[in-house]
């Protein structure tokens, strides 16, 4: 067999194979990195779906599950953030005397505090300026802000799905569209639905989001076996990444 491939540029087979191997390895790494952020992503999705359902005209028997989803989402998001900030970064080779177990959140904490200060000051400024804006503008901005957030959430999950093809992301996008999407972003569409249809869409969205959340967390736990605590991998099973 010739070393040269059928490629029009006569690229050696070895080079094409190397490119292909690199592409596959990058794909596995991308899926692993994505799964390692499962807690944060699940938390955000459950917040969207739970809070969206709670703000909707929800049947009383769905209040509990919706609240549970929203609280679980808040818990997962903050747990991820807490662990991320506490984790710090590994010690440098040249800093051999440094205590590597000590958390070094440093700039991350400052960035987080600046972001929080920005959000809180924005919210305070918005509420203080209410008399100047008038009710029409005030509620208009509020409603469009919510619509923008919901649309952003749906676009975010569709984009992530296209990047790593985790079905859970598509499920989250559908669940957000079925709760926040219908009740916040598209109220005109809501008026065309019967009460039974609304209940069905709401409950189906909650079930879908909960199932996707469980599946994504399980996916992360399966991939955790790949993480090494020393310079030797615990497992060479990469089936989960393919």
């Amino acid at each position, binding site marked *: 067999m010739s070393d040269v491939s059928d490629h029009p540029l006569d690229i050696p087979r070895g080079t094409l194979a190397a490119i292909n191997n690199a592409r596959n390895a990058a794909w596995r790494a991308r899926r692993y990195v994505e799964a390692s952020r499962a807690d944060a992503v699940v938390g955000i999705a459950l917040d969207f779906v739970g809070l969206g359902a709670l703000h909707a005209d929800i049947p009383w028997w769905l209040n509990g599950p919706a609240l549970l989803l929203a609280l679980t989402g808040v818990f997962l998001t903050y747990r991820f953030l807490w662990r991320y900030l506490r984790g710090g970064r*590994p010690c440098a080779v040249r800093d051999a005397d440094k205590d590597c177990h000590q958390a070094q959140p440093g700039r991350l904490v400052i960035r987080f505090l600046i972001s929080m200060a920005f959000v809180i000051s924005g919210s305070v400024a918005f509420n203080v300026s209410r008399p100047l804006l008038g009710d029409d503008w005030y509620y208009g901005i509020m409603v469009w802000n919510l619509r923008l957030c919901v649309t952003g959430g749906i676009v975010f999950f569709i984009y992530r799905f296209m990047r790593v093809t985790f079905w859970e992301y598509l499920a989250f996008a559908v669940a957000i569209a079925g709760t926040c999407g219908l009740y916040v972003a598209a109220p005109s569409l809501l008026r065309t639905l019967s009460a039974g249809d609304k209940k069905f869409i709401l409950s189906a969205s909650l079930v879908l989001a909960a199932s996707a959340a469980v599946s994504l967390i399980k996916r992360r736990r399966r991939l955790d076996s790949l993480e090494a605590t020393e310079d030797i991998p615990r497992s060479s099973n990469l089936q989960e990444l393919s």
Partner: protein
Amino acid sequence: MSRSAGNGHNGTLDPLIHESSRLMIISVLNEGPWMEFGFVLTTTGLTKGNLSTHMARLVAAGYVEEWKEFVDRKPRTSYRLTRRGREAFRHYQKTWRQLTGGKMR
């Protein structure tokens, strides 16, 4: 490769990246911030010695940054692409696309 491989400038492929193992390593590191030695090892399928050698070359070239720590008295090494490494890889991808008219990833 049918076209010449040079130092990564003027439309040539960076020879440091254009080696199958190092290309795989850089492709993996390009997907995230810090990655542990063990993870890169299993993801690329290279041997431990092979990976160490290539990593040393990439670190020496300033493409990869290395951090070491001890967890439960066991050594743990993590790597990430430096800004220079990311730029070099982006340039490599761009050049590859120009040469072949196809996408690398």
